[in-house]
């Protein structure tokens, strides 16, 4: 699928000279250092880099979980560096969905309840929720396991449930932080196939942080490599 820009010509995500610095005592750690990047709508970007290269920090900035020290993060026309924290929470609810390496499902809730959680936060009508939860779980192949708790599932299944949870609010951007990091290679591959499938949704933009270059090259449209907080390279995957 060819990458496209949004109807008004803007990219889905624009990173404009963003930096994220932390101070630890006297030292200043430049986790993200002057990164600029445009990501057209509908594209699948893999962020590569070694540990501590700043790729997860960059993902958190795109997710609206963190704010840049300087520069602007513009997602679907919204400058995340300037909006209020309430607006940022709404952005996380409605525009992005997030998947983590360690799944982060709430262990005492069933899959159904876990997937329902974003709908509760977004104040979706109760009458609509069950159908949407089922639809999301069907889509990741867990339609028959809605009453199970995360502990009763395999790692791959848990990650699928996490993807269902990320998608249930129909976001425009899916962010995945090392989604295959805790999975064996076969399961990891199936997860990436699922992400590729999800990318077929019109306008769905995916950003995945990974350090598995072969997988990234097979599934992503574009690779961006980071090192020491800087963007080292940015280009088409194949």
């Amino acid at each position, binding site marked *: 699928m060819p990458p496209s820009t949004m109807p008004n010509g803007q990219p889905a995500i624009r990173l404009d000279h963003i930096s994220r610095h932390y101070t630890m005592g006297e030292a200043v750690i430049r986790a993200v250092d002057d990164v600029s990047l445009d990501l057209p709508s509908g594209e699948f970007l893999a962020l590569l880099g070694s540990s501590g290269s700043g790729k997860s920090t960059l993902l958190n900035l795109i997710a609206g979980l963190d704010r840049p020290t300087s520069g602007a993060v513009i997602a679907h026309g919204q400058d995340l560096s300037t909006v209020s924290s309430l607006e940022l929470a709404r952005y996380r609810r409605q525009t992005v969905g997030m998947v*983590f390496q360690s799944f*982060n499902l709430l262990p005492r809730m069933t899959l159904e309840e876990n997937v329902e959680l974003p709908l509760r936060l977004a104040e979706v009508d109760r009458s609509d929720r069950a159908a949407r939860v089922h639809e999301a779980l069907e889509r990741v192949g867990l339609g028959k396991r809605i009453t199970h708790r995360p502990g009763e599932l395999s790692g791959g299944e848990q990650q699928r449930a996490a993807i269902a949870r990320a998608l249930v609010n129909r976001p425009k951007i899916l962010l995945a932080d090392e989604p295959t990091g805790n999975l064996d290679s076969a399961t990891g591959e199936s997860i990436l196939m699922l992400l590729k499938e999800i990318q077929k949704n019109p306008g769905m933009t995916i950003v995945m942080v990974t350090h598995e270059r072969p997988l990234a090259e097979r599934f992503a449209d574009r690779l961006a490599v980071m090192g020491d907080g800087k963007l080292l390279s940015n280009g088409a995957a194949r």
Partner: protein
Amino acid sequence: MKPRDLSDLALRNLREAILRNSLTTLGIAVGVASLVAMLSLGVGLQQLASKRLSQSGLFDSVFVTPRVNLRGMGRAAMPPSSDQAPRLLDESARQEISRLPNVVEVYPQVRFFTEVRFDGKPFATMVAGMPASSKASGSFDGMQGSFFSGDAAYETILQSEFAKELNAQTSTLIGKDLVLRYAERQSIPPNPMDSKATSASNSESLPGGFSVVPKEMRLRIVGVVDTEPASGFGGYGNGRLLIPLQVAMTLRAAQVNDLRDIVRGTSSAPTFASLTVRAKGPAYVEALEASVKNMGFGAFSLLDASKSLATFFRVLDMLLGIFSSLALFVATLGIVNTLVMAILERRREIGVLKALGASDRDVKQLFFFEAGVMGLFGGIFGLFLGWLIGRALNFGTNFYLHRRDLPSVDISSVPWWLVLFSIGFAVLVSLVAGLYPASRAARLNPVEALRYE
């Protein structure tokens, strides 16, 4: 988040750490229980005291005496501002007083010495006339036998100390008769010879006197009472042998003030030593006392005593409240501790919620709600516990009283305001305790929270 989802999640969180949250709730409950128990005790004692005191008639009564009488009793002279002439406390004065607003009844104190014959032996004592309304005063609660069958019944109730003089087994006295010997007063017209003899030196003519004739009367003993329903007031001795007031008045027995009156030469008509005026309630006593004084009589009430009693109970309530608030304060620390621990434990969960789009406010409300629910349950359970403690104290007290043959009392009372106050207070205290943990949870950095293992 919608309130229903908020409560769903909060209750779920509370259930998930059931042991710790139950213990915290129990802590609040114990605090509330001690608050409720102490306050219910304060309220109960106050109610008991004011009930007993209002029944006793001491606090809704004005005691009226002729002014001359007061002066004669060695009291300080009336202030010069009261320029009204001293008046006689006779039947017309009684009628006039009973027409004053908010007066329930006006009755004289009839007291006279008597010699009782029982089993052929003489016993000297003081007779007191009791108005029918005294039955409701509480003084006769728990008496042996019964109250007078009627206003004019020739019956008597004995004060137990006097009854023991007649027979140590006081219960055997009931139903038996005794003979009352008393001095009846018979008026005699003024003696013309006496008038003549004194007219030369004194233009005032002397009024007529009275002669005293011994009389007898048979009375049936209907009851024996432990309390002193006719305790002495203003120098009049305690009544040990009680008879209906109406009977006492028809006897026209010579009373202690008769001799004084005749020497003072006030009137030949009988006067009252004192009158008791009962008002509709303690609130009317002050005005009533003033109007009686304006009429030219001496009057006094125990209102000042009742006022300081009210102050005493207010201070008692406050002290009890302060002590039990300490227990609640400790419980509050328990809530703060539990919620702060919950934040540490649920750090990652808070991070996940924020990543899924929960706002700071959502997280804050969640913790706030959890604190409020613990407060509500702690309040309800504590109220029940406090009520139970009050009942237990009541039971213990009455068990003790019962063994001493005393009437049972209610020393603990949980009025509606205390129910609402204690639950409301528990919720409020819990919410205040939840303020800090809730805002701390809300401020949690989601990136750090998600990194937390």
